[in-house]
């Protein structure tokens, strides 16, 4: 029987997807072992507790509404002490890095980072971590109370939204020493898109043919919630700005999904996008080197594929 605690994350009053993903994983583990799954929320997020449908219990801590590494770590620490969960799931994220390391050290708990899969094995847990830039996977087993840092994209966020009873419980918790103070949130500048930060990129190459054709690509990008990037010939032609160029003399990008349309895949381009988690290539040339690095490929005209996609999306 495993009791799992999920430490949720939020920005500007909304739970981050990682919260639901972790909750989905926790729900499954709790189900498999006949245990419970609880979610820890901070401050005003208490009023959104019902969104965490997969949790059996939502623990609401009295805290500042904005994340504070010192305060939130102190809260997590005292909740772990109080509730003694078997496993604590924390995001492998900007906030999670602060909390996991500090709480793990103070409470002397093992930490397993970069985890994308967890399974129960008797009273122990087996976790898979992505190490060395994703080149090797490490599988470890832990049979005591531990912290697992979960990578974004490890589960479908939808799985965290239902399946539990989500009763609410207020918890009183430590506050921290006040050495760190939140000042303000800073929104990204609206001037142009920073493609190095994009989660999804629709990237175009020479295959596009003319500047006017880019409009169709922009429509596709919009419906995929993606940004548009390109290879060098497009910038050389003056069709897109330098800030959109991926590759050796452009920017290096690491989106979750990189959709390469009409890009042949010169080494100079591949250098800039090979770190994308999933690469999908559309090219008329079946020998195009882009297919060597792509995870999925379609041999065909990029506009045919774009049109077909748009039809399907509508």
């Amino acid at each position: 029987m495993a009791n799992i605690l999920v430490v949720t994350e939020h920005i500007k009053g909304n739970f981050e997807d990682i919260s639901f993903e972790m909750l989905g994983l926790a729900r499954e583990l709790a189900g498999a072992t006949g245990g419970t799954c609880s979610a820890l929320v901070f401050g005003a997020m208490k009023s959104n507790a019902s969104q965490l449908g997969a949790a059996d219990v939502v623990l609401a801590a009295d805290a500042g509404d904005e994340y504070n590494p010192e305060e939130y770590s102190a809260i997590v620490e005292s909740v772990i002490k109080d509730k003694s969960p078997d496993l604590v799931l924390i995001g492998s994220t900007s906030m999670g890095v602060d909390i996991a390391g500090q709480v793990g050290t103070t409470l002397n708990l093992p930490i397993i980072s970069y985890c994308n899969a967890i399974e129960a094995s008797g009273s122990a847990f087996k976790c898979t971590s992505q190490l060395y830039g994703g080149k090797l996977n490490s599988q470890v087993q832990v049979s005591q109370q531990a912290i697992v840092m979960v990578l974004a994209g490890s589960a479908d966020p939808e799985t965290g939204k239902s399946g539990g009873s989500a009763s609410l419980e207020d918890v009183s918790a430590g506050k921290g020493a006040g050495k760190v103070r939140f000042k303000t949130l800073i929104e990204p500048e609206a001037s142009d898109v920073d493609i190095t930060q994009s989660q999804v990129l629709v990237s175009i190459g020479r295959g596009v043919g003319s500047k006017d054709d880019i409009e169709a690509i922009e429509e596709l990008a919009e419906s995929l919630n993606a940004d548009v990037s390109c290879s060098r010939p497009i910038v050389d032609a003056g069709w897109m700005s330098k800030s959109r160029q991926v590759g050796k003399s452009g920017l290096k990008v690491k989106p979750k999904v990189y959709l390469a349309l009409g890009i042949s895949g010169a080494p100079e381009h591949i250098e800039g996008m090979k770190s994308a988690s999933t690469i999908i290539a559309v090219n008329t040339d079946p020998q195009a080197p882009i297919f060597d690095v792509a995870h999925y490929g379609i041999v065909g005209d990029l506009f045919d594929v774009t049109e077909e996609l748009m039809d399907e999306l509508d």
Partner: protein
Amino acid sequence: MKILVLLRQVPDLVEDLEVDDSGKALDVSEIKFKLNEYDEHALEEAILLKERGEADEVVALTQEGEGSEKVLYTALAKGATLAKSIAISGEASDSAQFAKLMAEAAKAEGGDMIMVGVQSVDDRDGQLAPIVAASLDMPCISAVTGVKVSGNTASIFKEYSGGIMAEFEADLPAVIGIQAAEQPPRYAPVSKIKQIQDSAEIGSLSASSSNGASSIEVLALAPPPKGEGAKMLDSGKDLLDVLKDLGVA
């Protein structure tokens, strides 16, 4: 204002990585190590603070061993004021224990701010910054892309997803996990490094491992399962299914 920068050498991902005979650990016999790229950013940020007059001293620290001199001389050539290698007796069995040894050395050296790279490719058992901070009872902020120091406090800019940032104020001493410096790490010209090698001294520190057994049992280390090249799809409809599976459509 004295900043300590903790530098780590990590396996260079340009090389093909292989697993040793145990099937559980990296084969390090043939591998090339290089300075952790996030640590380069930490060093850069520290040197920028010194150049802006917000810090007086930048001390570069790294574990003594193969390549450590090169790391330290390069740090001096870039603008660190002092460099020390840390002799570690015993062996750190995981990244958490390693972090505690670094904390011990940092404590012996003493400083107002400790800067490290936010993560490394092999820190499976927890990240350096928060573990050092907790060990020394200092506040810690990670994923930082900018620092301003004024008196005994620092303004710290932390990056969230989607380009949103948060500004925090922290009392010093504090530990900062650097995501990216305010400018790309500078290049140290070879002639400058050689000049430093002839003139500068590298100091030494020590830390001893308690060598406690890790409570994590490693079962296997292996390349992720991978298909042969691209999986070819027939139509835009198939592509949409893939995009849906990836959660972007």
